[in-house]
């Protein structure tokens, strides 16, 4: 394991210290917690709180700031934060207009955030929750914990963050979020697995000439292992899966995110996007925005994911709404 770290069990704390040192004008850390919160909050705006296990940087701390998240709660690497940490996040974020929790759909995250919600409600704070489950690599059946939450979560942060900044009510934001999540789908591919510092070896192993379709952002298994393919054929596979899941209709408008998983050069992300563009050129759908970058990573995993979101009328405006965060 080659990592620029110190003690493996200290990575989260030390990372947060570095983050606050760099961005102390925009954010602060709630003392004795793993909560990063906006420094200059605005009264009577709905607060958005997200978070989860660490190792997905810049998610979620990098999106704390005006126009996106009010607070982010960091767990240990790939491990959901506990209810008391999330509760601290809720309390620090609340502006008096209620709090929306944005949760990636993993058993641990859902349970810890839900318990925090119960605790916060007991303290009189109005809390709603939104569960993001955009990863179509896993079937949504009663035989699994359900679809996983992956890179699309960042789109939720952006669009709902704009809604909150524009003064929308908690009920309306929650409703908007429910529609948004239903219309958003992601799928990824991994060339290598991530190595959790405390574990010290990759979460799974792939031969030098192998890759895997559908891997999750904590190295959860995908649906097909194969020899390394060209960017063009990866794009073909991922777009066809998304096309099928969406059932593209003429004239629809989509937003698109190519997400690097942590160790993937930006050059490759753009090459991949170009291949996605070629695939989509065959479809009679519009792509209103395209975002590229390592936004929801999996430590040092090499790979990309592709997210599409079917846009409603006003969503593009929300997407373009200005933000003041560290990593947008």
């Amino acid at each position: 394991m080659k990592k620029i770290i110190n003690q493996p069990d200290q990575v989260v704390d030390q990372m947060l210290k570095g983050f606050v040192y760099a961005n102390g004008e925009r954010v602060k850390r709630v003392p004795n917690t793993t909560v990063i919160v906006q420094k200059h909050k605005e009264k009577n705006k709905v607060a958005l709180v997200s978070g989860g296990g660490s190792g997905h940087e810049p998610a979620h701390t990098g999106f704390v700031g005006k126009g996106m998240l009010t607070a982010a709660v960091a767990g240990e690497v790939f491990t959901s934060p506990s209810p008391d940490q999330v509760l601290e996040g809720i309390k620090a974020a609340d502006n008096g207009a209620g709090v929306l929790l944005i949760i990636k759909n993993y058993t641990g995250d859902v349970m810890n955030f839900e318990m925090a919600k119960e605790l916060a409600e007991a303290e009189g704070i109005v809390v709603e929750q939104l569960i993001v489950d955009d990863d179509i690599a896993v079937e949504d059946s009663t035989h699994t914990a359900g679809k996983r939450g992956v890179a699309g979560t960042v789109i939720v942060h952006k669009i709902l963050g704009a809604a909150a900044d524009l003064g929308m009510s908690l009920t309306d934001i929650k409703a908007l979020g429910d529609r948004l999540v239903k219309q958003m789908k992601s799928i990824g591919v991994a060339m290598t697995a991530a190595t959790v510092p405390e574990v010290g070896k990759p979460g799974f192993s792939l031969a030098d000439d192998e890759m895997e379709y559908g891997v999750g952002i904590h190295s959860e298994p995908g649906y097909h292992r194969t020899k390394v393919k060209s960017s063009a054929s990866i794009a073909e596979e991922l777009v066809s899966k998304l096309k099928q899941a969406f059932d593209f209709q003429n004239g629809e408008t989509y937003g698109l995110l190519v997400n690097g998983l942590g160790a993937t050069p930006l050059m490759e992300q753009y090459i991949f996007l170009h291949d996605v563009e070629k695939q989509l050129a065959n479809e009679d759908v519009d792509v209103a925005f395209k975002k590229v970058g390592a936004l929801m990573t999996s430590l040092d995993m090499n790979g990309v994911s592709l997210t599409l979101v079917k846009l409603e009328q006003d969503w593009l405006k929300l997407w373009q709404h200005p933000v003041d965060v560290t990593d947008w």
Partner: protein
Amino acid sequence: MLTVNNTKAWLERFADKIKTNKAYLSELDSVIGDGDHGNNMARGVKAMKEKLAEGDYVEPEEVLKDASMALLSKIGGASGPLYGSAFLGMSKQADQDSADIHAIVKAGLDGITKRGKAEVGEKTMVDVWSPIVEHLEKGTVTIEAVQDSVEATKDLKASKGRASYLGERSLGELDPGAVSSGYLFEAMIEGEIIDE
């Protein structure tokens, strides 16, 4: 029956087993999960041990309550809320009747299923807690019985938790949460809490 002393001894023994098997538990979790169960549990029981060492307890339910809070706030992940809920359930029931171990453990199981919604057979810690509750009722709980129920999770296909993404491929592997729960019950038996 539970006393402050035997409860503390039980949980310390549990903590020691987790600490000893930390790497093994993470190893199991790396096969069908994300490789952190040992680290999660070790972080939790360390905090629990420290908290119990500080406490000045009169009743066993206070010990269980503090254990619950420590585990809940330090384990994280899926097992944090589950162990936290289990211990909270046990604490409440011990407050009612500290002599009925069966009822206490059953309350723990109820805490787990209420929070995690898993049923028997979904390859989770429930598949250890549930048979142990039955054994306690019948008075047949033994180390072997615990180990058998842990071992039996190998034959189950996961449909809850992270292992469920593996589907068929989860067959043949032990469930990490079942193994850590097994340690809890081994420690209970070794602590001679259960009256003959």
